[in-house]
């Protein structure tokens, strides 16, 4: 049988020969592969080599097993125990996953709390400025609101507003909203419509703050007293959240980075 020169083999599909050896060909491919094997020495040699390598892989000698792998009584007792939560977490993969999740949660919390603090602080500051500007405008000649606000100042609502605001400012978000509401609530007080003089102070910072602002407008007390007190409570709460999230972040990092403490005890009886 005349066979093609080795140079012609470069045009042949070697993968087809490998697939033929693995029994992974269709009828048409089988016929084409067998033609190749019949016509090309290199393809025939390839097919023979694949067989020889597969046989050698199956017969590959293996060095002696380094130890006996029977289980000791201690191994059996350890494996029979119910797995507790912490040892499960202390396993390398789970521990890292858990630690990574904690760290991510902590980091997100720190960033969110910090961002909210910045935004809330900015709003409160801008609200205070707006209030001061409006108060200045009132002093300059908007007499209607000032004249209505004066009796409210006499009721010493400003003094009671701060504790209520502080008490209601236990949540950071609530304190932030309360601070920004100061500006919103102060608008009607200094606007053309008369404020409701019966606003109950127990509604908290949002309600109490306008009273304080009105008091400062009419009563001549120091400006911005209630707002800083309300935001002080908010800052404390935010600080607590920041510390909490920071602690989560640190604990997560420790779980991820600190070397594994709980190694498996024993590897069975060794000989």
């Amino acid at each position, binding site marked *: 049988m005349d066979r093609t020169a080795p140079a012609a083999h470069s045009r042949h599909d070697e993968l087809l020969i490998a697939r033929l050896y693995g029994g992974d060909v269709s009828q048409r491919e089988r016929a084409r592969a067998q033609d190749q094997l019949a016509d090309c020495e290199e393809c025939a040699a390839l097919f023979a080599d694949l067989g020889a390598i597969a046989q050698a892989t199956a017969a590959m*000698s293996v060095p002696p097993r380094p130890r006996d792998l029977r289980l000791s009584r201690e191994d*059996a007792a350890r494996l029979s125990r119910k797995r507790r939560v912490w040892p499960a977490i202390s396993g390398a993969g789970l521990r890292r996953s858990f630690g990574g999740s904690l760290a991510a949660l902590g980091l997100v919390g720190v960033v969110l709390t910090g961002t909210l603090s910045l935004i809330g602080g900015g709003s409160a500051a801008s609200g205070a400025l707006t209030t001061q500007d409006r108060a200045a405008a009132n002093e300059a000649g908007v007499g209607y609101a000032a004249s209505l606000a004066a009796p409210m100042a006499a009721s010493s609502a400003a003094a009671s507003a701060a504790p209520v605001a502080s008490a209601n400012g236990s949540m950071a978000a609530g304190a932030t909203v309360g601070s920004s509401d100061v500006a919103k609530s102060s608008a009607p007080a200094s606007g053309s419509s008369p404020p409701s003089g019966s606003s109950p102070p127990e509604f908290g910072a949002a309600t109490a703050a306008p009273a304080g602002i009105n008091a400062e407008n009419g009563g001549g007390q120091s400006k911005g007293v209630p707002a800083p007190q309300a935001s002080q409570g908010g800052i404390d709460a935010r600080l607590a959240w920041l510390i909490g999230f920071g602690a989560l972040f640190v604990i997560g990092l420790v779980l991820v980075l600190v070397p594994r403490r709980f190694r498996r005890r024993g590897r069975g009886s060794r000989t």
Partner: protein
Amino acid sequence: MDERVADGRVVTEGRAEAQSRSGAPAGGAVDPGQGIDVALVEEALRGQLDAFNQLVVRHQDHLFALVYRLIPDRDGAADAVQEAFFSAYRNLASFRGGSVRGWLCRIAVNAALDMQRSRRRRPSQPYPEFEDESWQPPAEPKAEPETQALAAERSKALARALDELPFEQRNCIVLFDVEGYDYAEIAGIMHVEVGTVKSRIHRGRLTLRRVLAGDRELFRG
């Protein structure tokens, strides 16, 4: 040539058909000690550690030989097989019948794959035993010295060539050629498509042959 081709197919497909008829799961040949294994599993389930250790003694050499081809050093392979026996002991109740040997092989292969994944981050010296000239692979007692020497050289060359392969190709080739799993079983173990397994095996074999080009005479002898 037709016969050789036909042999290749018969070996692959015939094995799968025989397994499906007998109900024997993966692992190729029907295990003659199956009855003993099942009895030992039942005893171990009743808390008999000695029964489980008899299972270990019966299968530890086979599992070590299998895993050693996947984990390129003795201690690592022994650790993987030890982990497999731990896992088998923990999950004895999940054994659903069939071939105990096939069940243990699957657990061992999974343990080896886990170890490979962890070692990918910390590569180590592959097959250190083959670099140690003082160690010689065991040979058949009645083999001629020349045959023994040839087998040793062949194993060394093959070990080096296997180490050149990507993990995925090496695993598939070992499971197919050594353990006798078929394509679908390997796909199940490796959690990939059957086509992927076929591609890895065919391409891996071509790569092996290319790597072994300098030692080709060892395999043609």
